[in-house]
């Protein structure tokens, strides 16, 4: 028989609460007797008589005494630990009365709601690292939507997170979906068995929407931030995400998407994927096909990655690129493609596809092998512009939130007789503009007879707040061809532009 006790100095609990706790402790396996009492003289005498408190131990009236008698030390210790945990559990606050009250800090929020487990941080970059640190200090996972955070801060935050076993998504993490929770810019997706690890916001959105609209679903999409696979960070969050998916029973297949990683980091990540028991699709947008272990397949495009994850099911199979292209009689002087993208990764995918189809491409957000846009006069190359790039968003909202960022460039493209096709994207979902299609159609309504062809794709799902089909219908009514995916929009643009050039 073993007796263990613990004395909490100056700890008061009312007797009803104590009796309830005593009963719970006494009912634990292997416990013979248990008492949780304030250490008043009479209570101390009771406990001494029951052999729960030895003569030498002094207690005071406002000490809480926890004492257990058990068959084994392990049982006694376990019961005592449970009781202490129950005592230390913060008191719940009433739900009704807290409706109007808002905490002013992460600390206060966590104090009032101890079951919070994730912080979504979107404060200005100067303050974001400090807030993330507070969240990590309190054991919270972090999704940091904020950008303009130094790479040194990113590294130290991710190291701290790894140390504590916490997931540090971001900085500059545009999207994640954890257990159906849309974090930052995310779409309303079908739940399913495909997991996504994304160093790219719109890339993750495109793949997850294509999968969801194709009838399968997403288990979780973990964002890692655009720089996670750089040499400085070394893929800390990506590697943890792989661990997480390895042990997630809901996930059968994982898609990893990123801009081309640093070669050393790529090596580490690919080696880690090789040790996973789950099949992977790896999509390094703009990278050469990379050698992968047997459980992984490579895709150069987002659409290709979605199709691999879907087990080979083709996306938008009914979409006839050649047929659509033939509706546009070529006009010899029109040869160029102008791509105006809200989604950075969609712009990267466009570069991959147009370059692969033999077109000469420049971009302000150039992928490896594509020249950087440099303002060359009479440039006959296709221009693919990422309007979410810093030069367009400094001091204004991202084009996904405020599509008017694209207006000027679009108007000018519509009146440019060199251009055969204007290539566009619309990104729907939580966080995005409520009706980007209407905004777009108002701009293009006034275009002239010989204006370029308009080809678009819509990233989104039927369940999104904007409803994908409704947005598509509006675009089509305005004479814009809507492809089932960004990749097919690019293929169509290339086909139209090529036929014009002939």
């Amino acid at each position, binding site marked *: 028989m073993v007796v263990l006790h613990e004395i909490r100095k100056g700890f008061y609990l009312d007797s009803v609460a104590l009796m309830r706790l005593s009963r719970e402790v006494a009912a634990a396996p292997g416990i013979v007797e248990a008492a949780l009492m304030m250490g008043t003289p009479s209570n101390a005498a009771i406990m001494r008589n029951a052999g729960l408190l030895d003569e030498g131990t002094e207690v005071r009236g406002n000490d809480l005494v926890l004492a257990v008698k058990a068959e084994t030390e392990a049982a006694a210790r376990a019961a005592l630990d449970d009781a202490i945990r129950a005592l230390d559990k913060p008191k719940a*606050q009433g739900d009704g009365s807290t409706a109007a009250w808002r905490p002013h800090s992460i600390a206060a929020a966590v104090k*009032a709601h101890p079951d919070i487990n994730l912080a979504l941080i979107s404060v200005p970059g100067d303050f974001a690292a400090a807030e993330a640190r507070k969240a990590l200090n309190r054991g919270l996972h972090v999704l940091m939507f904020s950008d303009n955070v130094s790479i040194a801060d990113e590294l130290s935050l991710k190291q701290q997170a790894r140390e504590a076993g916490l997931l540090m998504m971001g900085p500059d993490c545009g999207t994640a979906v954890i257990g159906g929770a849309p974090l930052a810019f995310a779409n309303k997706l079908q739940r399913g068995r495909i997991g996504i690890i994304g160093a790219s916001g719109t890339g993750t959105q495109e793949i997850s929407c294509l999968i969801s609209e194709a009838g399968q679903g997403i288990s979780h999409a973990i964002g890692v931030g655009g720089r996670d696979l750089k040499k400085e960070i070394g893929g800390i969050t990506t590697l943890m995400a792989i661990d997480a998916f390895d042990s997630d029973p809901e996930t059968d297949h994982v898609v990893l998407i990123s801009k081309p990683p640093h070669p050393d980091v790529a090596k580490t990540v690919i080696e880690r994927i090789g040790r996973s028991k789950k099949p992977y699709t790896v999509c390094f947008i703009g990278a050469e096909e990379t050698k992968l272990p047997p459980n992984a397949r490579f895709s150069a495009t987002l659409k290709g990655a979605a199709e691999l994850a879907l087990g080979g099911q083709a996306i938008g199979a009914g979409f006839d690129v050649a047929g659509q292209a033939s509706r546009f009689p070529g006009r010899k002087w029109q040869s160029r493609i102008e791509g105006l993208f809200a989604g950075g990764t969609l712009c990267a995918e466009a570069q991959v596809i147009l370059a692969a189809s033999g077109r000469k491409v420049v971009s302000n957000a150039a992928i490896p092998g594509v020249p950087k846009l440099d303002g060359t006069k009479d440039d006959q190359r296709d221009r693919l512009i990422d309007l979410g790039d810093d030069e367009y968003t400094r001091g204004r909202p991202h084009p996904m939130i405020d599509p008017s960022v694209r207006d000027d460039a679009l108007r000018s493209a519509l009146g440019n007789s060199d251009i055969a096709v204007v290539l566009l994207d619309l990104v729907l979902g939580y966080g995005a503009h409520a009706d980007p299609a209407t905004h777009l159609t108002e701009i293009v309504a006034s275009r002239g007879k010989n204006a370029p062809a308009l080809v678009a794709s819509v990233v989104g799902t039927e369940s999104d707040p904007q409803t994908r089909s409704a947005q598509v219908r509006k675009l089509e009514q305005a004479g814009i061809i809507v492809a089932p995916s960004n990749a097919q929009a690019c293929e169509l643009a290339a086909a139209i532009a090529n036929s014009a050039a002939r």
Partner: protein
Amino acid sequence: MKLIEEANQQALARILEGEPRLVDIVPARELMPGLKERMILHAGPPITWDRMCGPMRGAVAGAIVFEGWAPDLKAAAELAASGGVEFHPNHHFGAVGPMTGMTTVSMPLFVVENTRFGNRAYCAINEGLGKVMRFGGNDESVLKRLAWLRDVFGPTLGKAIREAGGIELKSIIARGLSMGDEMHQRNLACSSIFLREISPTMARIATDNAVLADCLGFIAQNDQFFLNIAMAMGKAMTDPAKGIRGSTIVTAMCRNGTDFGVRVSGLGDQWFTAPVEMPEGLYFAGYSEKDANPDMGDSAIVETIGLGGFAMAAAPAVAGFIGAGAPSAAGDFTRAMGEITVAQNPEWTIAALDFAGVPTGIDVRLVVDTGMAPVINTGIAHREPGIGQVGAGIVKAPLACFQQAVRAIASDLGVA
């Protein structure tokens, strides 16, 4: 920092473990060996006559006449102005006092003993409402009442308290919180409980029924009677938490009508001061904020232990009375103060917050980080001496005090 967290836990434990008992009422000269004739203890951090506000000067003049150091108020003011009396904060003598907080040799003081740590703290007897010295009142009626407190009430109640073997205070506070008191602007429940506890003993030892009736009546007519006991209790509970190196927990907040002063555990007796702010609140008929004096008193010691503005949720009626908002929003004050404190007091709970404890242990770091200043419930004095209370409201502790304290702690710990 680990050092700070551990020091704060220690400071907090010392506050929470306190076992305050009201044990006696004794003239100040017998309690304070350092307190001499022609010395006046006042509320707040140190201050000189030339910087004192109107009510403080009025109270000083009254106290001088009361002690017989000058024949009249005019001569008293001249004596004070010419350096004829010494001024010290109550806090430097183990005492506290509400509003102007006058303490002089002959005044009877409540003695609260913290039996857990063996320390004592003192506070004068509450004079009641209306024209009183704590609001700068100094006319004949004020001095007459003080004399009665000194000669009749103090000795009578003191004897009863001794006879009763002292009175345990924490449980009175716990009950008061459940009956709508926050122990700063509302002490109705605690005053009543106190009267209930002490009156049988007072009756038993009474030798003169008329005196007994006067004394019982004095307590019964003063809803704020218990405030001064709660203040001495606050001081008795926070003093043991002083001087724990690295601790960022506040051990005293007080004001003298000119400056607001803060002490923080890790830096012992050092004051961090800044100009005191004007209270915001409601005024009695005929008065407005034009008449108001800046905030005064050592009474913010009750906020330092989680009562007053910190326990607003327990006293929704007070929120309305002092113009702090709708009674239904009283809980927001307490929740907000929960953001600048490190713990809840498990012995002092608030039913309306599902028995959450009052927020305890103000951390200067959290005050500066959140920019949320401690909220203090306070009476408002007229800016001219001799007029008295004109309203009640809330006042915020100036953030500058807390910023200084943070810098001083950082430099003490060698953190640049």
